[in-house]
């Protein structure tokens, strides 16, 4: 077990280093630099931009900049964001909780819905209900995510102005609301983006859950359980479900990082100030420290989640023994 864990950790570390270095090199090779983007006002001269480049060492070779970045990162200094003109750490401290709130709710909701729908489908595979649900799921699974977000925005914020069209809170009045009013305001802003995320992801989860259940249903112990007189639902709940949950755990491990980058499109359409938006904008602004730190944070998350999912599967599945 310890050896397995050590090997997995080492592998994860390797992936993180590789991915981060790749992002660092790519973004430095791209045309333009953070100064060109941050000091883009037309009446600032190129000569002044050059002074800033020198001041920040951006005129040094990429290798040297990389070494300096590694040294700083090792000391826990993620650097200073050019586009936000704040420490990278502060930018993340603002954006990450926003993403976690949106994604956390989206994840929980979509897995809850997805698993239930998957189980309902698997109860009578091939029945009318299963096929009908399957088609709906396939349609939802085929919707372009940004388009669904745009359509939901169009319908529920513009045509029927039931919900605010974006943002996390009322931009002006939030701080002056009563505690109850604040909660309500937040909830109202959450509805549309969470709904979009839940619809998009639940479709995938349900399809996966159905497949996973069908794969374990024909097994001997399921047949035994049914023979013992357990109802189908009880048998599923006692035996099959536990086994079918394993691939779903793996899926969860995959989904967490995908959500943590932020559902980029959902954040964009609903103006949600989360990680996805921050990192995408940072790329356009060539904000080297922010991009590199963002990719690093992301790949750590991915590696950690994959590892946790593996361990969770191992813990849940008695057949796997970790050597």
């Amino acid at each position: 077990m310890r050896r397995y864990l050590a090997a997995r950790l080492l592998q994860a570390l390797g992936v993180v280093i590789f991915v981060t270095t790749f992002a660092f090199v790519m973004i430095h090779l791209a045309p333009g630099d953070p100064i060109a983007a941050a000091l883009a006002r037309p009446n600032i001269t190129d000569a002044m931009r050059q002074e800033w480049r020198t001041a920040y060492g951006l005129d040094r070779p990429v290798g040297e900049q990389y070494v300096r970045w590694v040294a700083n990162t090792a000391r826990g200094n993620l650097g200073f964001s050019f586009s936000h003109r704040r420490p990278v750490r502060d930018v993340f401290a603002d954006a990450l909780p926003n993403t976690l709130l949106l994604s956390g709710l989206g994840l929980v909701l979509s897995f809850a819905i997805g698993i239930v729908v998957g189980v309902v489908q698997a109860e009578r595979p091939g029945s009318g209900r299963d096929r009908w649900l399957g088609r709906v799921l396939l349609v939802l699974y085929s919707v372009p995510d940004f388009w669904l977000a745009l359509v939901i925005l169009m319908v529920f914020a513009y045509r029927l102005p039931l919900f605010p069209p974006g943002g996390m809170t009322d931009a002006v009045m939030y701080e002056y609301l009563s505690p109850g009013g604040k909660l309500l305001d937040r909830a109202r802003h959450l509805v549309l983006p969470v709904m979009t995320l839940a619809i998009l992801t639940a479709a995938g989860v349900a399809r996966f859950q159905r497949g996973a259940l069908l794969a374990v249903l024909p097994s001997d112990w399921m047949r035994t359980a049914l023979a013992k007189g357990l109802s189908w639902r009880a048998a599923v709940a006692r035996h099959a479900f536990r086994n079918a949950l394993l691939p779903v755990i793996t899926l969860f491990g995959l989904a967490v990082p995908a959500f943590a980058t932020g559902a980029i499109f959902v954040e964009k359409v609903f103006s949600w100030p989360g990680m996805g938006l921050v990192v995408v904008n940072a790329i356009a602004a060539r904000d080297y420290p922010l991009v590199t730190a963002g990719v690093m944070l992301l790949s750590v998350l991915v590696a950690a989640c994959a590892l946790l999912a593996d361990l969770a599967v191992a813990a849940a599945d008695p057949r796997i023994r970790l050597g």
Partner: protein
Amino acid sequence: MLRFPRLSARRTRSATLCIFATLAFSGCKGLEDTKSAGPADVGGTLVISTPSDAGTLLPPLIAVITDRQVTDLLYDRLADIGDDLNSVGDKGFKPQLAERWEWAADSLSIVFHINPRARWHDGVPVRASDVRFSVNLIKDRALASPALPLVTNIDSVSVRDSVTAVAWFKKRTPAQFYDLVYQVSIVPEHVLGNTPAVQLREAEVGRRGIGSGRFRLAAWQPGTKIELIADTANYRGRAKLDRVIFSIAPDFTAALTRFFAGDADIFEQLKAEHFARFANDTVRRMQRYPTLAYTTLTMNMKDPKSPAQAHPIFGDRAVRRALTMAVDRKAMLRNAFDTAGVPLFGPFPRGVSVADTTLPQIAYDTTKAKALLDSAGWTVGPDGVRIKNGRRLEFTITLPNSSALRKQYAVLLQEAFRKIGVSATPDVSDIATFMSKLAGRAFDMQINNYVTDPDVWGFKQSWSTAGIGKDGSNSGSYSNPLVDAMLDSATTTFDPARTRAYARRAFETLIEDAPGIWLYETAAVMGLDKRIHPAGMRADGYWSHLADWWIPASQRSARDKIGLRPTP
């Protein structure tokens, strides 16, 4: 347009009284001579919906428009430019931190008398040493202030006594006074002086915004809002509004949406497509405002592949003129701005004092354009694209993806050129790539936005030979000795009438030479909530008199009633 009052001796007294009165009733109107706003009309909240956050609140380091807006409201200058934006001598300038000034006989120094009642927002009095500190800071190379090239004519500032500063200049120039009082906002030495200049770029102290303006910083939540409240004890009188909130949206559309949802009172950059929404709107209206920004399609005079040579297409004046003739600027303006577009008459916005809208133009005429290209040797090839000596008449139009207007124009222009047998491809890239292409002169045509200063210097930067290279913004490398001479004369004469005459000659030549196609004046229509009563808008910033804008007491909404209580 509302005039800022001169602080004559007679009025100074009433101003003093008023400041005391402010402590007792918040109804004091201060110094303003507005007739329509009654004493009860002080108060209310103005919300500006903007897609860009500020990066710094330190005037020498401002880089984006929101930096400029917020710092203009937080910090005072020695004197404020007049509404006609004259930059020659001190004509029209109104006292701010300096209540009066005297010129030396040789004009190489000016004595400024600081208003003894002026206070920083933390209560410390404003001193002459703050003026010296502000000038030294902007001139400190370690800070690398983008404004540094603008203040090179200021030699130094010395402190005669605590309220008397003497500014020394290297040369006597028409704009020397303007260079100091307009380009240098006065910042507090006691707040910033302890941080080395090299650290100020990243220091937290640069985000505190302690100035001496009529608004003070209440809160700055990055990416969310910047909230200013009236500085009730201000030496120039309390602002009429209680607070001004810059409500920051992640993008243009979101900012626009907030405005139409009623969550904001101002949206600055309306486009034609939004105008129809005002037709039956009882709450909002459109308001034109002057700006100093203009957008042109600039042609590269040099071959981007070998910059020593003339551009194979745009090196030819006849081709440049033909391309200009192919563009129906009126129809494009209508497409982009509906009826509210402001045409360009040359490479200048209407707000500058040297603007001249009577200059003769190259008229839209595709027949003439085709004939001109034919006679220049560019004949129509098999696929409809013109060819000359085996070279196709094709090029790219470079522009940044950040601007919806410019993207719209790129598509319109491409089609206009196609109609005369010219193949143009838009090259849309993010702002960083766009800027690096501009700096490297690696483009054929580019749709560029120029923001000029009120003085003539900006035109020299953008269109004279002196502006070619890294110290200027003449990215098309346009060079014409006549234009150079005229712009030189315009920047050195002390007679505003002659400045205008020289500039006119320069612009006339530029239009005839067609090194660019003059597209439109930028961002000239805002959406405004009807309960807001603006008090004059200057072309260098509609927010220049924001402290005098007001909201009638009878029309207050929920957010107007927050009052002066501090932000939680």
